[in-house]
């Protein structure tokens, strides 16, 4: 069975703080894909990143970075120097190679206060 766990339900930080959102996944497949989506207060789901299971390199995109560790089945997301505009619900998701379906975590609500 596949599963994605986002244990942090809600995180509150003050602007300019760094924050890490945790994502732990379970799968028996050797080939799979991991995703992060952002859902701002406006409601749409915005794609942030896709990573396949053979690529364990960390990725940085501006203030965003992702740490993929197969040994701990984790795909954590860090926002450096957070801003109020980062306030949103962030979802981690998993997809196996033999299916198009995404398995979503329950999401982490991030609130960044000025």
């Amino acid at each position: 069975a596949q599963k994605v766990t986002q244990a942090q339900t809600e995180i509150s930080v003050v602007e300019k703080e760094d924050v890490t959102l945790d994502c732990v996944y379970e799968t028996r497949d050797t080939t799979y894909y991991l995703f992060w989506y952002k859902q701002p207060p406006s409601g749409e789901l915005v794609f942030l990143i896709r990573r396949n299971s053979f690529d364990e390199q960390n990725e940085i995109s501006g203030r965003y970075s992702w740490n993929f560790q197969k040994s701990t089945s984790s795909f954590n997301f860090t926002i450096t120097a957070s801003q109020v505009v980062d306030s949103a619900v962030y979802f981690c998701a998993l997809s196996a190679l033999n299916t198009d379906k995404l398995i979503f975590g329950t999401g982490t609500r991030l609130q960044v206060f000025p």
Partner: protein
Amino acid sequence: DARVTQTPRDKVTEMGQEVTMRCQPILGHNTVFWYRQTMMQGLELLAYFRNRAPLDDSGMPKDRFSAEMPDATLATLKIQPSEPRDSAVYFCASGLSLLAGGERETQYFGPGTRLLVL
């Protein structure tokens, strides 16, 4: 900038009425997904299509929900009759699925239809 479009954006209806939600996937995408989001259940997959063929609708209440793709540019989700517990945000997403062994593409989501059944 290609986007998934959904109509209507908001819908208020009375219990028992039929509701039809429409989705236009990104041109060239061959998979379409319908999700429902509620506070209690989070994001649930209702149904999905690949090359217009329904592949999985196990998440959908069969007695009242139906999903179709009349053509490659239109997907519909219908609820008949609607009930208050159907109140939720319904998202459509599209993606490009290659045959087994291919790279997995990303699912891109539409803005959602916010449904309120009174």
